[in-house]
């Protein structure tokens, strides 16, 4: 199983500004310290040695994560996604580049919820306009289809949902009821978020991937906490909503429906999970800030580990691939 992150930003897509790019270039030039590079490959090899926040970016697309069970070739393929934030636009471009416009594909999409940042990419998802494609959108919300139709037409968008060329089906799931879809065992779970959200535990070939975003953890009910420990149990990777600091999440931003890096580490440690991906990054955090949070979270994991096996912690970024 391979996990590919197409969008990792929370609430609102962002883009690097000109001054931010200039600052990165200046820092890289300073680090080069007068070195000369024979060609672009040599320069890129040097860039790869620089800190992540200098040479690269965590990215700015809103939530979209791909689960790849088998590497696609140019023939028809069953794609699996979590959420349709703005990250699905570059995903759609990659699909078209691989298959062209005439090869029919199937897309299975598991929706955490239908807040705007999680559905906003769909109107610009090119495969939805191509006859022959099949898009199955799964979720536990009763208003799943209505939410997609509402954003896809006047006055919000120039193309009405009814004009889409692909066949689009909405499939209702129920929390705590396991199903098998596209070869994946899938278990949805209710999470605390305005209007509810749902996490998904996916299992295939002995590997477990948990997608748990837009989820607040109140910590005042041991049964709820134990429920999430079970949900994360022995997962090979947990994608976790770490939008806020822990202090913010329990004070000024309590009831805003998001969680923290600290709670992510604790739950994963208690669940014996192997990897934790910090996800749904706060839009006001720049690359340096996210890199600092990633480093702090690794330190937190280290000092709270006790006798448990190490938990690998990283901040997800647009373009990251993780093989489980």
């Amino acid at each position, binding site marked *: 199983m391979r996990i590919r992150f197409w969008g990792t930003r929370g609430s609102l897509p962002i883009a690097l500004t000109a001054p931010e790019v200039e600052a990165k270039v200046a820092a890289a030039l300073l680090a080069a310290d007068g070195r000369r590079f024979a060609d672009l490959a040599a320069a890129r090899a040097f860039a790869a040695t620089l800190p992540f926040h200098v040479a690269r970016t965590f990215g700015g697309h809103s939530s979209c994560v791909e689960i790849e069970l088998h590497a696609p070739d140019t023939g028809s393929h069953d794609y699996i996604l979590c959420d349709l934030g703005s990250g699905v636009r570059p995903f759609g471009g990659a699909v078209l580049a691989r298959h062209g416009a005439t090869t029919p594909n199937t897309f299975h999409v598991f929706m955490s919820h239908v807040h705007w940042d999680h559905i906003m990419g769909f109107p610009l998802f090119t495969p939805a306009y191509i006859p022959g494609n099949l898009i199955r959108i799964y979720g536990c919300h009763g208003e799943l289809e209505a939410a997609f139709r509402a954003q896809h037409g006047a006055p919000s968008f120039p193309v009405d949902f009814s004009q889409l060329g692909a066949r689009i089906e909405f499939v209702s799931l129920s929390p705590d009821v396991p199903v098998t879809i596209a070869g994946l065992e899938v278990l949805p779970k209710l999470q605390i978020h305005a209007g509810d959200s749902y996490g998904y535990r996916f299992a295939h070939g002995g590997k477990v991937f948990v997608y748990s975003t837009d989820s607040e953890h109140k910590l*005042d009910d041991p049964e709820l906490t134990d429920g999430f420990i079970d949900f994360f149990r022995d997962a090979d990777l947990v994608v976790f909503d770490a939008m806020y*600091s*822990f202090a913010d999440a*329990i004070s*000024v931003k309590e009831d805003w429906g998001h969680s923290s890096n*600290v709670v992510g580490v*604790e739950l994963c440690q208690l669940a014996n999970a192997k990897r934790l991906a910090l996800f749904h990054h706060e839009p006001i955090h720049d690359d340096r800030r996210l890199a600092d949070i990633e480093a702090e979270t690794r*330190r937190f994991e280290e000092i*709270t580990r006790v006798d448990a096996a190490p938990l690998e912690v990283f901040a997800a970024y647009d373009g990251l691939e993780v093989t489980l």
Partner: protein
Amino acid sequence: MELSPRRVGDVIVLRPAGRIDHLNADDFRSSIEPQLAACTGAGPALLFDLSGLEYISSAGLRVLMVAAKTAKPRGGRIAVAAPQPLVAEVLDISRFNLVFPVHASLDEGLRALRAA
């Protein structure tokens, strides 16, 4: 949970020891209730001496935060003091120290609460 309460002037000092995690955070919450009820503008302030605490999880920190939110509207004052280095690091990484008064030593905490 034994908190060994002792009164120092107009401050009650509570000294939790060992570990506070999701398994015993509710015991911790119950244990501070009597002192929290008395923590008003007219009553004594509460100072948690963390020098005997080896670890506190998010559930334990939340108990402290809820206590502060309960006391503040009544004019009550709550602070923590003397965290061991690893606990101090947890307070820092969680940003708890930005929303809750954290003092490096017990004396500093007592001075701050008396001066308030």
